[in-house]
């Protein structure tokens, strides 16, 4: 029997565990660590509430966790699995874990923000990162969310009508959709969205999605884009100025790009003039009340505020051009422009944090970092900052390995690939005598009494509780409340 710890129970951690349990010919004892009492990471707290079908991966995870979790006792399965929640693995704990496990896999994702780095970004009321905003509408645990509380109050939102989003990945599109549909009751009634958030943002009527580059460099996928256009049936109108489309070289587009361009061209036409029936599914009302627009080739340079209340009043943008090197740079010959806005969301992608920077750092693992994610080799083995060689028995999967890009299928494939490499690694490594029991694991890693680790069965209890509160559930926001419900 070989022992494996996986850090983080989001899709990457769970898919890695799932693949190992499914494929390993060697009996495994897998421990999945999670900082919250609740599992599923970005599936629970990142995926938009109106995309419940994307969260269906949780059902697969639940089925196999139920089947393999100790002590179901009666099972005769060759592998063992346990979930330990409410424990943050830091540098020190990772160091200890590595000494008692045959393999540790880091799958803790990216939970910091990439920044614009411009004046006013960090000290203006009404400027938040996409992660903070998504966390809010997805009921991310309160005490884990270090954000200024003022913008979460309903008073703040009374005068918020114009919102700008910087960046145009799928997260930006999710946020745009949430902002503009927040007043439509039937749209959200069967979701687990934080109702305080939709109630607060219901006055928003204009959203600008601003990109540094052009239309062709858009990062979102067609499903999210189509959803945005289809909101026209609720009187929500989209726009992309035709000047951004005029330079598109259609012969260079891939399949997705060709379909995307057709979508824009069709939806920009009046409803009756569209040629294909799939763009005429729902006739929009005669007047539009809310609007979204893509704005390209702009670089934010300054956030301006109202001196009286420190709230954002406008954003200053420079106009970009494409230079000889084919890079997008600021065109200094053109004057900057100012957009008056009431709220700004920066959606530039998530950034990973080196686990060596967490905790007291008495023992470092000498993990090498590559900009916004861990440095790994082709096999997914984490590299050492000392000699650039793979650290024995330390792997990474998912966003902390690849950076914050790709949809769930790419995370799944990455996790499966790393799982295969871990199996190969374990087959080659010496026979293990480290059969750490749960008690050993907890005593070694959790050496103080301050911890209240939670189990898979605790989660099932909380899960049932949340599902009773609403359809499909009402998330408990506070960790202390979660523990109370569990009975810890």
């Amino acid at each position, binding site marked *: 029997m070989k022992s494996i710890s996986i850090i983080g129970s989001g899709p990457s951690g769970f898919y890695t565990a799932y693949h190992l349990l*499914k*494929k390993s*010919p060697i009996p495994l004892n897998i421990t999945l660590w999670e900082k919250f009492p609740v599992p599923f990471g970005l599936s629970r707290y990142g995926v938009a509430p109106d*995309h419940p*079908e*994307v969260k*269906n*991966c949780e*059902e*697969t995870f639940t*089925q*196999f966790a139920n*089947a*393999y979790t100790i002590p179901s006792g009666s099972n*005769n*399965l*060759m592998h063992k699995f346990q979930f330990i929640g409410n424990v943050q693995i830091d540098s020190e704990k990772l160091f200890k874990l590595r000494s008692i496990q045959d393999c540790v896999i880091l799958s803790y994702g990216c939970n910091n923000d990439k920044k614009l780095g411009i004046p006013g970004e960090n000290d203006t009321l009404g400027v938040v990162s996409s992660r903070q905003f998504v966390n809010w509408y997805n009921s991310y645990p309160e005490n884990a969310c270090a954000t200024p509380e003022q913008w979460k109050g309903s008073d703040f939102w009374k005068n918020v009508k114009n919102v700008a989003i910087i960046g145009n990945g799928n997260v930006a599109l999710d946020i745009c959709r949430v902002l503009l549909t927040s007043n439509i009751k039937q749209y959200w009634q069967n979701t687990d969205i934080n109702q305080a958030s939709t109630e607060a943002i219901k006055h928003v009527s204009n959203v600008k999605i601003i990109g540094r580059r052009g239309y062709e460099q858009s*990062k979102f*996928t*067609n*499903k999210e884009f*189509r959803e945005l256009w289809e909101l026209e049936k609720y009187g929500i109108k989209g726009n992309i100025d035709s000047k951004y489309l005029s330079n598109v070289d259609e012969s260079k*587009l*891939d*399949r*997705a790009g*060709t*379909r995307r361009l057709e979508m824009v061209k069709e939806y920009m036409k009046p409803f009756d003039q569209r040629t294909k029936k*799939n763009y005429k599914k729902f006739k929009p009302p005669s007047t539009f009340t809310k609007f979204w627009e893509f704005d390209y080739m702009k670089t934010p340079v300054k956030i301006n505020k109202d001196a009286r209340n420190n709230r954002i009043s406008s954003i200053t943008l420079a106009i970009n051009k494409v230079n000889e090197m084919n890079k997008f740079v600021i065109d200094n010959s053109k004057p900057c422009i100012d957009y008056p806005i009431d709220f700004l969301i920066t959606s530039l992608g998530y950034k990973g944090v080196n686990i060596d920077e967490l905790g007291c750092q008495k023992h470092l693992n000498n993990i090498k970092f590559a900009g916004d994610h861990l440095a790994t080799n082709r096999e997914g083995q984490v590299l050492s900052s000392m000699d650039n060689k793979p650290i024995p028995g330390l792997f990474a999967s998912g966003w902390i390995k690849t950076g914050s*890009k*790709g*949809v*769930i*299928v*790419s995370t*799944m*494939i990455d996790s*499966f*690939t790393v799982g295969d490499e871990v199996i190969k690694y374990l087959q080659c490594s010496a026979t293990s005598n480290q059969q750490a029991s749960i008690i050993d694991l907890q005593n070694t890693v959790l050496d103080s009494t301050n911890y209240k680790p939670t189990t898979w069965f605790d989660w099932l209890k909380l899960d049932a509780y949340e599902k009773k509160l609403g359809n499909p559930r009402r998330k408990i926001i506070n960790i202390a409340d979660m523990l109370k419900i569990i009975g810890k």
Partner: protein
Amino acid sequence: MFKVLPSSLLLKSSARIKRNILYKPIISFTSPTVVTPRFLSTTLPRLHGHLHKPKPGEELHCTFILKDGTQKKFTVAKGDTLLDIAQGHNLDMEGACGGSCACSTCHVIVDPEYYDLLPEPDDDENDMLDLAYGLTETSRLGCCIKMNKDIDGIRVALPQMTRNVQTSDF
């Protein structure tokens, strides 16, 4: 048995137009000469499998070509999707979104002989196929192919999902 198309050749325009000229020999659907034995844990819990039993006389057939070239032929009932069938028989097909056409993990490559018998993919399916790994001209999603008399005998291959065909980001 399996030749994976280099990513540079992935199709550039929408479905059916150029298929017969350019992309036919992606996979050969001839019988494999070598059948590789595959590790199967006897204790693996069956996680899915809500298959219907075909009514006597109404049996339909479909064949899956696995990643190692092995062919599996199943007798199936009308109305079951290829995803249902694959999961019911513990083949390596994920269906991460539970068969609701919201991911591309049930991507299959349809034998060109059967491809045109299928109704055209709708927007939802096409949006997901945009993201599928190792996309080919006859790619479809297993959750969107429902067995019926017209496609009796359909043959599909499971694509290789490796980093070789992974686009860097999307």
